[in-house]
């Protein structure tokens, strides 16, 4: 990581209070292009709260989120997505009644050029945009091996494939940073291994930055280049996986003193 490079995603002294409770404070992170970062911590440490601040769901009470050096203060979730931050959810949130391919197409919506008039009159522009969208969606689905399920309702997919679809949908927003909230939660070892492969594929293919929250230590230790550990909203460690694994404060936070 060259020092002169601007980080894709950067936070400066990010913090949030819920009433009198300081849920997260002084959270600083710099993620560079192509980097895979891990964010871990015991239950209730504030990991998902950080994610919610990074995606505009919560407005931080202090500090800023910068994307490519541009601050995103006061923006709404969909504007964060438009700027280039996409996420998946801890408990899968797909559009269950819609088909698999439609789930991906929804994420293209913000980039589609045609307007209501084009849609009403079915102009050439409409057909062209729709066809391009279908092609792009199929391409994304094929990366995740979901192309055979394109027309099935999303809710009918097994758990592991739903996860993959959620990642595919996040990728469809054409983001620069991907935030994965416990992608391996509830998966068996085979599914986790598949997911690992998936994450590596998209990283190599799209060259994006990924921030990963995970409980599955083997996954985090295997794929992440650097790991950040928080507890009670405070950063207690930040470093290479080996360093984290032997850090006494981290061990204390996880196992108790």
């Amino acid at each position, binding site marked *: 990581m060259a020092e002169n490079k601007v980080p894709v995603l950067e936070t400066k002294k990010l913090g949030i209070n819920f009433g009198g409770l300081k849920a997260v404070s002084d959270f600083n992170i710099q993620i560079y292009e192509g980097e895979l970062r891990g964010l871990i911590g015991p239950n209730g440490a504030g990991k998902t709260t950080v994610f919610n601040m990074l995606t505009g769901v919560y407005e931080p009470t202090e500090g800023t989120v910068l994307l490519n050096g541009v601050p995103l203060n006061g923006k709404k979730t969909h504007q964060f997505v*438009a700027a280039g931050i996409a996420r998946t959810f801890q408990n899968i949130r797909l559009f269950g*009644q819609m088909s698999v391919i439609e789930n991906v197409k929804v994420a293209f919506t913000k980039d589609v050029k045609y307007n*209501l008039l084009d*849609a009403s*009159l079915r102009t050439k522009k409409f057909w062209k945009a729709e066809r391009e969208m279908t092609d792009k969606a199929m391409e994304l689905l094929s990366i995740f091996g979901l192309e055979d399920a394109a027309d099935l309702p999303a809710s009918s997919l097994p758990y592991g494939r739903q996860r993959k679809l959620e990642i595919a949908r996040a990728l469809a927003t054409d983001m620069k940073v991907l935030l994965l909230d416990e992608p391996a939660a509830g998966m068996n070892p085979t599914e986790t291994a598949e997911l690992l492969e998936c994450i590596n594929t998209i990283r190599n293919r799209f060259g994006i930055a990924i921030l990963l929250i995970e409980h599955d230590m083997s996954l985090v230790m295997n794929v992440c280049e650097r790991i950040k550990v928080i507890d009670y909203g405070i950063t207690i460690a930040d470093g290479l996986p080996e360093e984290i694994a032997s850090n006494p404060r981290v061990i204390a936070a996880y196992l108790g003193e």
Partner: protein
Amino acid sequence: MKNNKTARGYLVNTLVIAAAFILFQMLTGIFGGEGDFKLVLVPSLWQCCYLILLAASLNLVLGFLGQLSLGHCGFMAIGAYTAALISLACERAGVFTDKAGLVYILIIFGCIIAAGLLAAVTGLLVGIPALRLKGDYLAIITLGFGMIIVNVINNLPFCGQDGLSQGSAAASLYKTGLGFGSKAKVTYLWIALVVTIVCLTLMFMFVRSKYGRAIRAIKDDEIAASASGINVSSYKVLTFTYSAFFAGVAGALYACANSSLSTSSFAFTNAGILNSTFVVVMVVLGGMGSLTGSIVAAVIMFFVNYQIANGSWVAALPPLINGIFKYPMLVYAVVLVIVIIFRPRGIFGTYEFSLVRLPEDIKKARARRAAAKAERKEAASHG
């Protein structure tokens, strides 16, 4: 280029509509546009047209966007009064010299479009604050707005109690403009049919585009939708406005079909066919998320309503049962309860009827039924 199947679908639909239209014109020729044809069938078709538009437009908000709005008839009232007032103004200005002329038809269409536009503007103004709420709260606030709209119209000097709603005055108000008599209804039935078909097409196009996908995504999961880059509040307001436009058009058709207008016919407390809960019943009956379902449900509910009001068999029933039919809302409630018990997702669910896909769909439904039967058999043999 569109794919062949879609192109074939458009072609088949256009041909079927054209064929139905020609057939209808031939029937008009045979019956000479007299008798029951003139007094029952044609007025019924007019009524069906605006009920279909009303149900389908509410379905955009209720079925596709998933937001409960109980003020839909308010927008219809705006449409009806706008159309009537413009027509009245034209008449007073002496534009209607010739009732069959091109100018006349242009003004009628102008009235209809203006009605839709004003309803849409009101929908936008109501939608911006109201759609910040969800669920029951949205239902209550839209219910309130519906009542407010009706009350405002009622108290405007030029269209309230002393204006258009006076029965005796109404007939003269409409001497040459809207408010077709039974003969004009036959002559201008094509206007109602064309307007309904065009509006339904527009709604289908809306639903089957990025807009439809976005609003169905919002219905399924708002948080996930905004995390996919969809501006949830603006899509909600857009859909609400779009839906109000068609409710306004339905109102204009209502103004065409009735010789007098009264705000009480759009009021929430109205026990007749035109109140916002009745429209909700139509949408639920047809299936939330199916425009073709709304069309079928609107026709069914019209038929039920017509039979309650005019069916000779109702009068022949014993007084105890007959009494129920004096309260049409009770009957609608029973219809709704029966539908909810046997088909909780409405008659059509989210299925859209399609002429091109019909053979395919029938095959699929048969396969499903056979599979379900086999499963039951197996379960029985195990048990």
